[in-house]
Structure formats: structure tokens, C-alpha cells
């Protein structure tokens, strides 16, 4: 990334009622998702001794069938308060659902940088 930083992206199929990690930044944070029928639980987890702060920026509309044309989206701003510079970033999660087959497809991305001086 220009100016330094880290981008991580992953995608995963998750079975109905399973809780699976859809994004892992080792030593920093984890994002888990658990689709249950027409509902979705999302769990954010800090893995750093200095807690990562998660702030939900926006949340889409969760429908029974979020299709590729209309995926469900969530976005967070994240901050790890370190000295001398914090790490700032943005995490996004996108989901489409295949309720009939009990599967949800997640795409997650994290973009992290050191805060400017």
C-alpha cells in the first residue's frame, strides 16, 4: 500500500448456525459471523493487549435472501491506541445468503495504517 499499511481480504462459506472466523488479523483482531436462518450474529474480537476499538459506521438491511445484487454490508472503523502512533483502519463485511441450502457467503476486508504524525 502506498505509504505503508496492511490490507487483508478473505471470503468464506459458512453453514447455518456455525460460528466461523471470516477475518483474522493475527495478534490484532478477529471478526466472526454466525448466520442462523434469516438472522446474523457478528462478533468482533480484539486480540491485542491494548484493546482494539470497533465503531460501527453503517449497517445494511438484512433480508432473508441477500443476493449478489443486493448483499448485506457492515463497515467498522477500528483503532488500536498505540504509542507513538495508533493504528487506524476500516473493516468491511459483505454477505450473501443461500437460505435454501443453509449457506452464507462472506467477504471481509481490513485496511490498516499507522495514524499520521
Amino acid at each position, binding site marked *: 500500500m502506498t505509504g505503508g499499511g496492511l490490507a487483508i481480504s478473505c471470503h468464506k462459506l459458512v453453514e*447455518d448456525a456455525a460460528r*466461523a472466523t471470516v477475518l483474522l488479523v493475527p495478534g490484532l483482531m478477529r471478526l466472526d459471523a454466525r448466520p*442462523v436462518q434469516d*438472522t446474523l450474529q457478528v462478533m468482533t474480537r480484539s486480540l491485542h493487549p491494548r484493546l482494539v476499538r470497533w465503531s460501527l459506521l453503517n449497517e445494511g438491511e438484512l433480508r432473508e435472501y441477500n443476493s449478489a445484487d443486493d448483499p448485506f454490508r457492515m463497515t467498522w472503523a477500528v483503532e488500536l491506541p498505540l504509542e507513538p502512533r495508533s493504528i487506524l483502519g476500516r473493516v468491511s463485511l459483505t454477505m450473501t445468503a443461500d437460505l*435454501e441450502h*443453509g449457506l452464507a457467503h462472506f467477504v471481509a476486508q481490513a485496511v490498516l495504517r499507522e495514524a499520521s504524525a
Partner: protein
Amino acid sequence: MKRVALRLLGDAVEDVLDVLMPLLPQGVYQRELADGRAEVAFYGEAPPELDALPVLAREEEEVPDGREERRRRVGQVWEIAGRLRVRAPTDPPAVPGVPEVVVEPTIGGFGSGAHPTTRMTLELLLGLEPGGGFADLGCGGGVVAIAAAKLGWEPVFGVDVEGRAVEATRHNAASNDVEVHAVQADLREVPPPPAGTLAGNMPLSVHERVAPALDPMTRHVIASGIVNDSAAAIVALYGAAGLGERARRSEKGWVAIWLAR
């Protein structure tokens, strides 16, 4: 396929998952148990890292492979106001005297009682005096219809636009030993069944069709399947049909409203 089930203190779950989740890309199946404990289960070989984790008990068994089987074993238990219990066949039965609805967790979109709208509907239902006909509109797996039948309403109807939901309702009603007349119909096209009490877990657009088509004999409606922002519209819709709001429940942005003549 091997199923590994771990019993943990509820407070230890997240720390254990910090270790396990990177090792289990397919994920885990987690549920709360009594006394502040929890179960975390997964499929496949137990990773060696497990030995160092604060696990109270560990069980391993060979089980059939497949998503349906994994979903079935998740189980579900919901207690509604201490007076009604919704559970899966794999969960332990309720104490004697508490009516319960036993529903097989299935893959698909049909209500298991897990959704806030279903639970809130059941909670409001428990506040009504059972008796006369009942119709569960948007019945899904039939949880509300079965509960109504068990609580004393008769006859009980279930209506859903999805054929699979109607099949699920019939199956679940039979396994709960109650009679529910489940029919497939689009309530945007046909009026709701004439019944003294209706529960409608449906989008606002369907409520908009149902409210003006209510039979005069319908005295109670539990309207759900809607978000808080739609509550005022629901009250206005059924108000125009002669019903007024009597009680409301709200959870996680969803709302359920009891309206009566």
C-alpha cells in the same frame, strides 16, 4: 465424521475460541448450557492445542456427515415468560406442566423460534385468553400455530406463501401431536382465514393487504415481522380496521404489537 463437544465455563468461551478459531476454518457450533456453562462443538480431529485449554469436559463421537445433521445437533431452547418452551428434539424436555413446542432445526428460512419476532409473538400470545379459532399468518415452521394449539385455541390454521413452510408446519404439528390446518396461500391475493385471533409474522406490505381484509369475527391480532420504524404504520392500518393497540414488545429493532377490538 467425528464430532468433538467441549463443555466450558461461559466466561472462558471467548478465550478458548481465540485459540480454536484459526484452527477450525469451518467454524464451531456454540450454545449456552445451564449454570453459566457453554458447549462449543466442532467436526473433525481435535487439534493438539486443545489439550492446553480450560475445558471442563470433552466428548468425541462418530456422527453422520452432512449439513442437515450438523444443523440438527445445534439444538435450540427458548423459554417464553417461563410459561412456554420451544426446543429441539435433541434438547432436554421441560419440567412437567410447562407446555413446550418441539421443532426440528432445519436448514432453510422457516422460523424455529430463534427470531425475536417469533419469541415476542409467543410472549404476547401468552397474554391472551385462549379459545376459539386461531390463524398463524406467515407460519414458517409453525411454532406459533403449534403453541396456540397447545395453549387451547381450536381450530388452528397456518398460512404461508412458501410450500416448504406449509410442509414443515404439518410435519412439526404432527410431531407435537396437535392439529394445525396448514395451507399455502399468498395473503396479498386472498383474505386471511376467519378466526377470532390472528398472529401475522409478515412484512409490512402483507399487513397492508391483510388489515383491510380482516373478518369481522377477528378480535385479536398480533402483528409482527416488522421493524420499529413500521410500528406506527401497523397501528394505523389495524386501527382503520377497528383494532387498537393493547401491548407492544420490541427487541433488536423488531417489534410485535397486540391489537384488539
